[in-house]
């Protein structure tokens, strides 16, 4: 432990001791090239205890490849990965011992039952006797697979298979949890259960989940890293991601007895408004503020000054799908 702490402090002097205590995953300039194809091209980010990092990006952006390098399954072309202070290229076994990993598609040994499968994982994880029993029971309970423990995994539904994979990943209560599309292909109830489980565990772990389901950004993540064509194009909180939207703090306004044309003309003349557009689906307009500022109160005051009656007025938080498109598409298009 002493040695590791020393290494942490050297590497992150400027970040301070508080950060080094909780820093769990350090990825620096990570790259993987397959011949000419740069699947991952210089990815850098850090994950600390208590964080749920949502790793976003279009299909083929390099999410799975990055995760495979973090977990030591793929050797990087360049760059370093450290998990709990251990370098994956020099001490892969220690890295793997500190990781729980749910690979894409949750592969398992299909002819085993969840019970024997989890016992095997517990053996390999160095658990035995009462600790092994406890770990298997607790993981099975948290992943909610207790009722299928003695059926061959190949006979289970997709949702249960995924949960068996989850149970396997959390069995040894790892400080770092990495999950590749943990909710892909699940129905809404199953998605909710998996998200609840991840939220329950978030406090004392560093969690990385990859996803292309944007609703998970708000449901799960405390931070997001977006990659496109193997490069990080965004690293920040979900709120910051939403703030990049054109629709961030835009106000939807409906006014009684005033037609849209007249309303648009007046609103666009206000000094805190850059633009406005009629709604496509309903009566009313959408007002875009200058510099993303909050304009609900000044806007409602101005409308009342005109003697108009407001039917409804609310601010939008931003549209993730639009942000996602705008920050990932240019690069994808560029590659083609």
């Amino acid at each position: 432990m002493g040695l590791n702490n020393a290494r942490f402090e050297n590497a992150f002097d400027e970040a301070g001791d508080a950060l080094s205590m909780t820093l769990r995953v350090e990825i620096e300039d990570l790259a993987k090239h397959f011949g000419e194809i740069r699947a991952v091209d210089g990815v850098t980010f850090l994950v600390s205890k208590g964080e749920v990092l949502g790793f976003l990006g279009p299909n083929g952006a390099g999410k799975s490849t990055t995760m495979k390098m973090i977990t030591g399954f793929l050797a990087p072309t360049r760059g370093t990965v450290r998990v709990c202070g251990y370098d994956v290229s020099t001490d892969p076994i220690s890295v793997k011992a500190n990781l729980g990993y749910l690979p894409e598609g949750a592969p398992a040994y299909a002819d085993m039952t969840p019970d024997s499968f989890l016992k095997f994982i517990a053996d390999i994880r160095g658990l035995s006797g009462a600790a092994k029993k406890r770990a298997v029971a607790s993981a099975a309970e948290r992943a909610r697979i207790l009722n299928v423990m003695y059926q061959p995994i190949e006979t289970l539904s997709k949702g249960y298979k995924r949960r068996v994979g989850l149970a396997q990943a959390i069995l040894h209560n790892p400080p770092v949890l990495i999950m590749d599309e943990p909710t892909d292909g699940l129905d809404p109830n199953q998605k909710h259960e998996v998200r609840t489980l991840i939220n329950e565990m978030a406090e004392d772990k560093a969690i990385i989940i990859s996803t292309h389901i944007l609703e998970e950004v708000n449901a799960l993540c405390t931070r997001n890293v977006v990659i496109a064509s193997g490069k990080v194009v965004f690293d920040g909180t979900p709120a910051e991601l939403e703030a990049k939207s054109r629709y961030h703090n835009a106000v939807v306004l409906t006014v009684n007895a005033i037609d849209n044309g007249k309303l648009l003309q007046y609103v666009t003349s206000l000094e805190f408004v850059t633009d406005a557009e009629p709604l496509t689906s309903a009566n009313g307009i959408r007002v875009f503020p200058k510099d993303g500022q909050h304009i609900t109160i000044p806007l409602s005051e101005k409308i009342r000054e005109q003697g108009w009656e407001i039917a409804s007025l609310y601010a939008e938080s931003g549209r993730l799908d639009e942000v996602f498109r705008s920050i990932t598409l240019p690069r994808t298009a560029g590659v083609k």
Partner: protein
Amino acid sequence: MNMLNIWFIMKREFGGYFATPVAYVFIIIFLLLAGFSTFYVGNFFSRGEADLYPFFSLHPWLYILLIPAISMRLWAEERKSGSIELLMTLPVSVFEAVVGKFFAAWAFTGLALILNFPLWITVNYLGNPDNGVIFTGFIGSFLMAGGFLAIGSCISAVTKNQVIAFVLSLIVSLIFVLAGYGIVLDFFSSWAPQPLVDAISSFSFLTHFDAISKGVIDLRDMLYFAALIAIWLFANALIVNARKAD
């Protein structure tokens, strides 16, 4: 090298054979073929000798056909189903996994071999065989099976397709057996220098197995099989490492 990890992987893999009918089908076919070849091809009765030479002498040919059926799934299936990503991200080394899986397959073959014990009872009932020779015969056959399995295990890491793994293993095994066969050696001895013919012959399973199955325990024969297994498993680990993510 963590012996416990090897043991856990071996245990899981060994259990895997019995999770499906594969194990039972294999054992039954092995016993039928072994019995059939001993009595009909090997002329067990008409030889009039109380030994199991007819039984053991046909093992190389049995193994060429049957061992690839056991070894083909070892890595090909792991890669095809994607479970290799799970296995290789657990805190085990590639070599532990390779050795654990190999031992599982070897133990399974050993079990199938031991289940031929009725033949041993028969020959003891009918006459007074040299049980020491029979014992070394079993050891030699078991060692040779390990050689075939190491080849098969290595080849099953090359492909995701079990049928390809089966066929390739069968061909390579055949080469290793035929290298000691009279016809092949005659073909070489007509033009090749004697040292080369000896070298080819010394690589053959037959050359080394024949002596052991006749009750002659030569350290060189033992070392041959041990080295063969070690080399193929080493190559196996290299291939798994290089191709696991393909």
